[in-house]
Each structure stands twice: as C-alpha cells, then as structure tokens.
C-alpha cells in the first residue's frame, strides 16, 4: 500500500508545480523551495565545479554553506553557494571552472 520509500513519501510531500532550470544547457526539473544543490542532486548530478589546480570535479560536500565546494555560476554570476541559493524558474546554471572571478576578498 505505502509508496516506495523516498524522501518525498516519508514527509508526504505534495509539492507545488515544478519548474525548469538548465545546467550547462540541459533542462532539469526543480521543486519550489529546493536549493540549487538539491535540484542538481535530484537530477543525479553530484559535480558542477572543477578545481583551479587539477581540474577535479566537485559538488556539494558540507551541505550547510561552510565548505564552499559547491560553488556554481548562476545566471552568469560566479561563486554562488549552490547549497544555500534557492532554485528559481528559468535559472541558468553553468559549471564553474577554477575561481570564477577574483574580485572577492577572503
């Protein structure tokens, strides 16, 4: 009787209408309120950045905004923490290579 176990089934989610975002040109479905990282994970995508040194793939690691491994270019704006930024209809996400840009003080 009960549906297959899934995160949505567990909390009996009845999400509002889903919408589309694109990742490197590929359309993905996101649910309202999901972070960009969650939308990517839901599509089975675990990596959306390559490192500056070795070009290694990275995605979300800490899940809470502390590690900065999930940096993503969102609508042309680099260095967004995908685990914090909510997905919005029509967002254009692109793999971030290296530093994105360098006008930020650390």
């Amino acid at each position, binding site marked *: 009787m009960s549906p*297959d*176990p*899934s*995160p*949505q*089934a*567990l*909390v*009996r*989610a*009845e*999400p*509002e209408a889903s919408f589309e975002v694109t990742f490197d040109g590929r359309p993905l479905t996101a*649910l*309202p*309120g*999901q*972070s960009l*990282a*969650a*939308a990517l*994970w*839901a599509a089975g995508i*675990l*990596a959306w950045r390559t*490192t*500056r*040194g*070795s070009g*290694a*793939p*990275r*995605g*979300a*690691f*800490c*899940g*809470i*905004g*502390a*590690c*900065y*491994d999930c*940096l993503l270019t*969102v609508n042309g*704006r680099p*260095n*967004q923490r995908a*685990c*914090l*930024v*909510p997905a919005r209809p029509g967002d254009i996400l692109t793999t971030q290579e290296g530093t994105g840009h360098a*006008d*930020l*003080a*650390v």
Partner: protein
Amino acid sequence: MPTSPSEPTAPTDLAVVGAGPAGLAAAVAAADLGLRVTLLDAGERPGGQFYRHPAPGLGARRPEALHHGWRAFAGRVHRLRDHQRHGRVTHLTAHHVWTVVRDPDGWRLHAVAGPEETPATVRAAAVLLATGAYERQLPFPGWTLPGVVGAGGAQAMLKSGLVLPGKRIVVAGSGPLLPAVAGSLAAAGARVPAVVEAASYTGYAREVPSLVRNPGKLVEGAVHGGGLLRHSVRLLTRHAVTAAHGKDRVEAVTVSRLDRDWRPVPGTGRRIPCDALAVGHGLVPQLELGTGLGCATRRTPDGTLALELDGDQRTSVPGVWAAGEAGGIGGAELALTEGELAAASIAHELRGTPYPRAVAGLARRRARLRAFADAMAAAHRPGPGWTGWLDDATDVCRCEEVPAGSIREAVAELGARDARTVKLLTRAGMGWCQGRMCGQAVACLAGEEPAADRRPLSCPVPLKHLAELPPPAEAGAED
C-alpha cells in the same frame, strides 16, 4: 529592510546571530521579556541545522517524520511570527554576518544579504552569538570525489531539499550523529550497507552516571538503534573508511579495522560497494565572530575549542553572549535551554528585568545536558593514529588542493611547528573555506592541538563593502 553600511538601521536592544534552536529560543524569550530583537541568519528559514525542514513550496504534510522534538520548534516559530507581527522581532533571512564591531552605543553587525550580496548593517546594545557548528572532517584518500559528502550535510540536504546523494550510502566517521543520519537516509529509501564508527563505544561505560541522568537521550539512541535493525544496517565500531574509490564519483570504499589509537590495522581493509559516502567526525563550534571580538575560548573534551561562557551565557567580552554549539557541542535540547538562559540574562542586564522563575530549572537542565555532552565528546575524541589513513598524495586542504605530503614536508623539512606556519608555507587553509574543512587535520599533522578559528571575516565579502566600512577601530582583524 537592509541598508548600506553608511545608513544603518535604528539601534535595537538585542541582535541574535543564528536562528537555530539556540538563537530562535533566545530571540523569542527575549521578546517575551520585552526586548526589541533583530534575528539574523544566513539561511532562508528558522531552525538551524537541527530543525532544518522543507520549504513551504515542497508541501511536506509530515515534516516531523524527519525530526524529533518538532513540537518544541513549531511552538517557537509560532511565537516568533507573533512577535514579528507586533514589531518586536525583525527576522533578517539570507543575511550572513561577516563581522561584528564596537559602536558607541553597543555593536554594529555587518552582513551580506542574499545572492546579490547587498550590504546590511544592524546596530544593537547587546549581541548573542548562536552560530552553531560545522562538521569535523578527517581526510582520507578519495575524500574529494563527488559522492563523498558530510554526514550532517547529507542529513541537511535530505531535511531541507528532500534529496539523497545516492541509492547505496555508507555512513562513516564518529559520533552520535551517525546512527541518526543512517536512520534518516534509510527511512528515506536509501540502502545503508554499514555505519562505520571509529570509536569503540566502550568509552560510554565510564560515563554511566551521566547517561542514566539523561533517559531521554537513551531512548533516542534506542530509537535510532531500532531503526537501524529494521533496515538491516550493520554497525561496525572501531573501524574507519580509509579510502574512497572511483573515477568521477565514488564507487566503493575501503573499510579498515582500527587499533586503540585509530591506526588502521594492516591487512584488515575490505571493500564495500556504494554510490555515496556520508562521513563526519563530530562537530566543531563556529567561533570566528566571537574570537574576532576577543572572546576567550576553552578546550572541549574532544579537542576542539568553544567559547568560554559563565553561568549566564556571557562571553568574556561585556555585552556579548553566546548560546548553543558555539559554546560547545551539546545537541538541540541544550541549545534551546541555553538560548532561554541567555535571554533572561540579557533582559536583566539591559533593563533590570527580574529573572523568570523558570531559570533555576533551566540552569539544572543545562548542567545535566553539558555533562552528557562532555561524556560523548570524550568517547569520540579522534585518536592520534588517524593520520595513518593519509597517503602523501591525499589532498588535505580541499580548496587549495594541498596534499598531505606538502604539509608533512613543511613540518619535517622546513621546521613548521604549528598550523599557522604550515598555512603560510603551503597555502593549506587559505582558500574559500578559510580552513573550516582542513583546519583540524592540518593542526594534527603539524603536531599541535587545533587552535581557535581566527578568520578576519566569517564569509567572503565583496571588496567594495570592505571599502565602505568605517575605519576598523576594533575590528580585531589582525590575522
């Protein structure tokens, strides 16, 4: 509304940084006592790490399925909304506070708001730091592969976004969070072939008195244990994941037996296939706003540092209080308790408000829960042999891609004796996360106890906001 640094908001009584259990409880209790409160959080919704929950748009009809103690949270959010309606609490969401500086009338908090990184400034007579914690990570070969995620991180993504990193997820590391995470992942449909715990649990035996004074915690443990049995999850104690394998993402992990010092026992490694690994070795208090202000710290039983607090939750800096994990890892119930104690103390100090009658009970509960937390921390303190998991090629610093070999060389050949010198020689800890992920590991490799966070800013800030800041009289940014 957020304003630019040159036009800060009218001063408020209390600014609370962090809307987790501690900050939320404090904001609501302080407003109950008549203070005007501004509550700031980097996240979109109140709740912090423990009460993370799906956004309204996800339509969760049973969000409590991923939580215990949901009623304590729902009640406070109700009161928060009520205070907001009456103008007693201002809740600034998606505001990341990057520094707190002294002001003639108290304090000035500087934040960046939202993805547009709009500057915002809040002025307040008193500050409460309720900034929580992040996970302690101990590196091992393969830990930078996609699919290797924080254990608490996996839990956080599940609770807020209703997503899983894979279908077959090994849970590993150390600490009481692991069984909880494994239970949630399994309930949400993942296969969890094993929970791999580096400690032995025998440490708990020594702590029987504080355990029996915390029956609620024992019940919690039993519930998680029962959930694990039901999902046929294997619990391996005194074992660790010593390597993750895969090309573009994790495909398997090697699990090894550990000796008493957490050194892998040669020849005991075996492979477990999986498509994700959720790993974490307990939590590290997030202190930089406090240490930036010069607040004193104390060493906790698991070797990390926390803010030093008095019985009223005051830091060593007058006008600055802290509650929850910033003062030592202890769980959500302790965070709620400390938030309420802090609110009572702040109202007393700012307005002479008498302490509510409940305060004595809160103080007793805090003492009991702290004793329990200290016992857990001691039992899960990393053994020195964990560095045996690292080969020289393993990146220790994820941001700057600094391998263990370079750090060992800085120590053995260049004479670095502390994490700071290692950092200068190798760039470990100089990247985006400012050492949050590698700091503990670098300190161990340098042969010292992990030191307090000393980051000039608590998050990266656009240069133009820094330029607009008034002269840094006491910003404490000496590093």
